[in-house]
């Protein structure tokens, strides 16, 4: 009774139907009943856009059908020659999910997508780091002026809750610093090098074969990806107005098995640690982590220790990447808009 009368239909568009975009469609398909019974939300995907085309249905698209686009079992269309920007502006929906690729130098195409959606009065949820790392304050100001939500939990730490953990659960605390492993590729490489005594190039190749590192791994291993995530934390948690150029960055490419062995002898592991503090420190560089420290997590895991004035140290560990994991953070952001 009350359930039905409180039911809210949430129409979403997904811009960029790659791993994460499709992951979200899959998650919405799996969680449809829970979304209704637990949150009173009837979430419908009414439009998706990719470089290859567009699908729209104001009643809601069938997720299982959409997922066929990823396997090639279904071909893309482009009704009436509609462009991505026309979809963003003209379709009837409440939330735009932006999951195109991250470009930290231009922020595009995400920056234009997000700006256009906010200007058309749509809430925005994104996993795309570029726009937030480059134009955080302009975008949050625009969202506030439009009375729209702008949510981006998936940009930092994937499934690992960090931004909403600090904003909601640690409300009232002063955050002194955040320190952690924000890149699963680097963590995998350093963990394997330490465990097996293998050189960097060898482990990188292995990581690429397993899909833990991209064909061009430079953004990960040179520390840029960590820097970009730090910037999002710096701006959203510490109110800075930083861009990735403000981060002092040293990557992991120079780390040798010898160095890892020396660290091991002294009771440490080496990890690429991102660090942001309220004094304005912004650094991404290899550090020695005591083996018994909570930041010593292996494999592709991400971890962050938040130092606060009331709660002390809080450490979260979780999967930093993966389409379903990223979609988990996106779904939580969507639900939070209607809480």
């Amino acid at each position: 009774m009350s359930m039905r009368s409180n039911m809210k239909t949430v129409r979403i568009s997904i811009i960029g139907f790659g791993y994460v975009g499709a992951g979200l469609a899959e998650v919405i398909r799996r969680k449809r009943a829970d979304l209704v019974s637990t949150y009173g939300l009837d979430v419908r995907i009414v439009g998706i856009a990719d470089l290859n085309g567009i699908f729209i249905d104001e009643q809601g698209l069938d997720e299982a059908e959409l997922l066929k686009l990823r396997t090639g079992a279904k071909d893309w269309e482009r009704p009436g020659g509609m462009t991505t920007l026309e979809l963003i502006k003209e379709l009837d929906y409440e939330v735009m999910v932006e999951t195109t690729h991250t470009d930290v130098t231009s922020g595009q195409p995400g920056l234009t997508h997000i700006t256009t959606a906010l200007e058309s009065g749509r809430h925005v949820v994104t996993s795309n780091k570029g726009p937030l790392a480059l134009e955080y304050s302009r975008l949050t100001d625009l969202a506030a002026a439009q009375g729209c939500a702008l949510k981006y939990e998936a940009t930092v730490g994937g499934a690992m809750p960090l931004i909403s953990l600090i904003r909601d659960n640690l409300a009232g605390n002063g955050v002194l610093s955040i320190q952690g492993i924000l890149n699963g590729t680097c963590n995998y490489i350093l963990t394997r090098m330490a465990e097996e005594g293998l050189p960097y190039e060898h482990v990188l190749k292995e990581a690429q074969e397993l899909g833990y590192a991209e064909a061009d791994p430079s953004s990960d291993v040179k520390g840029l990806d960590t820097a970009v995530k730090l910037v999002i934390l710096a701006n959203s948690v510490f109110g800075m107005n930083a861009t990735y150029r403000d981060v002092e960055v040293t990557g992991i490419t120079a780390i040798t098995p010898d160095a890892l062995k020396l660290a091991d002898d002294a009771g440490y592991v080496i990890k690429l640690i991102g660090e942001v503090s309220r004094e304005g420190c912004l650094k991404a560089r290899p550090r020695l982590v005591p083996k018994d420290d909570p930041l010593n997590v292996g494999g592709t895991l991400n971890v962050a220790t938040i130092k606060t004035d009331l709660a002390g140290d809080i450490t979260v560990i979780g999967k930093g990447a993966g389409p379903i994991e990223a979609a988990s953070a996106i779904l939580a952001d969507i639900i939070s808009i209607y809480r």
Partner: protein
Amino acid sequence: MKISMDIELKDIPGQLVRALQPVSDSGGNIVSVVHQHDKKTPSGRIPVQLVVELDEQRLERLVRALTERGVRVVRTGEERLKESMVVLLIGHIVHSDLRETIDSIDRTGFAEVVALSLSMPSVDEESSASVTISAIGDQELREALHILEGTAKEKGIMVIAPI
């Protein structure tokens, strides 16, 4: 040898300078001075902690000189290097004169390189070293790391410090 001294000064201006003069007169080096203006002993004096580098045989004379100047010497003892830190270095460490890098820390008087292990694949390849630095206090330890980072940067050596 490093000697720490707890002394107490009269609460009138110029006393700290008065207390430090005999240290240099007796050939000693002042390593650190902790002077807490806002703290007072029950007798209204100001406690100061000094660490000086001094020949042990000259300590007695220094204490006498201080006492003659109205400085109360409450305690003297050998200062130990209490705080330690392991730091890794990666790069052309041997070519870039490791000795000089270590000296830059030993010269401070408040910190020393107490252990070093080097791993060198071959002379021309990059090598790694783990360096243990000890210092008389936490602040001094951080200062020593700062000095090391400065020297290493000039030489293109990567420093990996503990979190």
